């Protein structure tokens, strides 16, 4: 981030005394919110470093920190394989949701069809169908298609999502129509307009959607639970569940596994978050 977006630069009034007070108040609020957000996560990390007989201690830092919980996680379950599986599933799910969502949103924004209200409604309503209703029929279908215990089976049913379509639709509605008009008058084909003009200017919504879709695919539990039959073909959420046994939770390993499972998402967020902001500076139109 080298160039500052004019809209985001501190406004002149902030140099004055009331401005300073206001800024301090904002900082105080943000620090409070940040602490509330981060503390439980801190606790998760600290607990993952505690030895078994220190698990229930309330000290802010373990007396004798250890990595034994991580060693336990990595040796007892195929954690690395699960992380890899989850990354593949989440990346493909997010990617496909962006593509299918982009195509559908474009169709709804670009053309005014007689049925567009119905289509819009159908897409939006699909979001409200409780998962439990579709679970068993989808399981039977996946079984017939030979998708049980495969990563493909985890990806395909989630390849399109109402949220993706709606979010990109909102993003595109805010897109300056003069540009679309101009391109259309120039005789550009719809396909070309989409990829050369619309997509490059949709950086922020695409990045936000990718983050959200990636995370929800990463945290998906019920469908993988149903579909996978062996731990090594499974995802990390199932791995976490393996530390919650009939005889109580294995706290240390569970927290270590949770840390391992959260880390990749944080990286994805940090990479894409930057993109959310930067995409506005790159696109020359604003």
């Amino acid at each position, binding site marked *: 981030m080298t160039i500052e977006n004019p809209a985001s630069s501190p406004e002149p009034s902030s140099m004055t005394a009331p401005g300073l007070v206001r800024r301090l108040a904002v900082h105080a609020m943000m620090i409070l919110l940040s602490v509330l957000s981060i503390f439980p996560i801190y606790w998760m990390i600290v607990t993952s470093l505690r030895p*078994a*007989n220190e*698990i*229930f201690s309330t000290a802010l830092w373990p007396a004798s920190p250890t990595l034994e919980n991580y060693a*336990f*996680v990595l040796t*007892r*379950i195929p954690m690395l394989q699960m992380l890899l599986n989850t990354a593949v599933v989440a990346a493909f799910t997010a990617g496909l949701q962006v593509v299918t969502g982009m195509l559908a949103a474009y169709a709804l924004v670009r053309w005014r069809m007689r049925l567009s209200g119905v289509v819009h409604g159908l897409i939006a309503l699909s979001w409200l169908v409780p998962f439990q209703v579709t679970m*068993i*029929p989808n*399981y*039977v*279908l996946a*079984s*017939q298609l030979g998708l049980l215990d495969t990563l493909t089976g985890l990806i395909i049913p989630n390849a399109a999502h109402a949220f993706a379509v709606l979010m990109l639709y909102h993003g595109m509605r805010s897109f300056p129509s003069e540009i679309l008009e101009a391109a259309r008058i120039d005789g550009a084909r719809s396909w070309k307009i989409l990829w050369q003009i619309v997509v490059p200017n949709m950086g922020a919504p695409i990045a936000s959607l990718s983050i959200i879709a990636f995370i929800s695919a990463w945290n998906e539990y019920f469908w993988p*639970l*149903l579909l996978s*039959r*062996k*731990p090594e073909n499974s995802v990390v959420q*199932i791995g976490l*569940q*393996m*530390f*919650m*046994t*009939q*005889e*109580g939770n*294995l*706290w240390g*390993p569970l927290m270590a596994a949770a840390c391992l499972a959260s880390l990749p998402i944080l990286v994805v967020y940090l990479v894409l978050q930057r993109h959310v902001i930067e995409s506005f500076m790159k696109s020359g139109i604003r």
Partner: protein
Amino acid sequence: MLRRTSLKLLTALAGSLLVPFGALADMAATIDKPVTITFYNYNLASASAGADATKELIAGFEKKFPNVKVEPIAVPSNEIMSRVQADIVAGRQPDVAQLVFRDLIYLATDLGANALEDMVKPAELKDHLAGMIPNGLELGKVDGKTYGLAYTFSTPIMFYNADLFRQAGLDPDQPPKTWADVAAAAKAINEKTGKNGFFPGAYGPADGTFVYQSIVMSNGGKVRDGNKLTFADSNAAEAVKMLHDMVVSGAHAKIDPASASDTFAGGNMGMFLYTSALLSSLKKSAAGKFDLRLAAMPSFGSKPTAPTNSGSALFVFSKDPLKQRASYELLKYLTSREAYTIITSKIGYLPLRLDIVDDPNYLGGWVKENPMFRANLEQLNRLTANMAFPGANYRQVEKMMMDAVREAVFGNGDPIAVLKTAQEQAQDLMP
């Protein structure tokens, strides 16, 4: 549309392949060609010692029967039932499954589990069951036939924190024997140390109904009699009222049922009545922190206790004669002396064959090293069958009962009236 037709086709196809229940084809006498059977198991879906022991058992079985390949399917215990059902719906007939007792009747009447008496020749079955605890075998029976062969299980046991006993001026070598003792000791602990006195693992979603049923049955009560619910009737309701009174007096803690075992493990509770299977994990958290001890479950005055069990049974679903034989051999192997030696010493469940307990070839050495386990073994003599509920709505009935128990124990209303109302409502859902 395509899907719907294919689903129908599949349903019809699956229907024609299934032999109607009861009229099973004869199980094969030997396993003369290679066969693969599926084994739905919840121990494998955890990262605890249970998974290792199960893998060891399966490997041992495959070595003994080289023609049989066991395909393990790991599903967490609270989801395994839905998975078995989903696979039956999808036309993938499971062969052997480890399932819990609450679903017993539904498994027998609706899901088509095989009764061992229908599948195995009487002499052969008798031969294998000899030496197993009769009360244990009773657990898997519906209308006199064995649908589930008791496999891994445990009974409620009183864990106590001897340090808190000492701090409260109590003698840790004389743990409470009756509920009156528990109430007094718990009250003393609560008043003198400020810590929680007592809590039973009887109210959470994870523990089902077995601790609650043990308490009720120890007072001569029952949760149902045939198709009539009786959990609000005299003895059963009295037991719950006793717990309620302990809450009022401060002896019974008022804490989150889901974290009761953590509160005990953290050294903040005097007595904790829960599954004996918790022993190894509690030992780990208590190490170097407090003096953990075990006692038998408390009784109502001089009435003998009626410990019931949590845990699982093995069910066979195979319809193919060869697979039935392979499945039955797996059942036999998993409930053999060798297997129970592994199950008890490595996972901590109870052995259903008491003749191995003092046999140095089996558990003898281990029991000597773990004298704590004796209290638990001793309870096996009084093992009482946990009751599953019948009918299509059995899970709702069970839930209504447990909700009412929680409300009766922790709420401010009259506990007996609360149970009565719930019993009337739930009765409508019984067959």
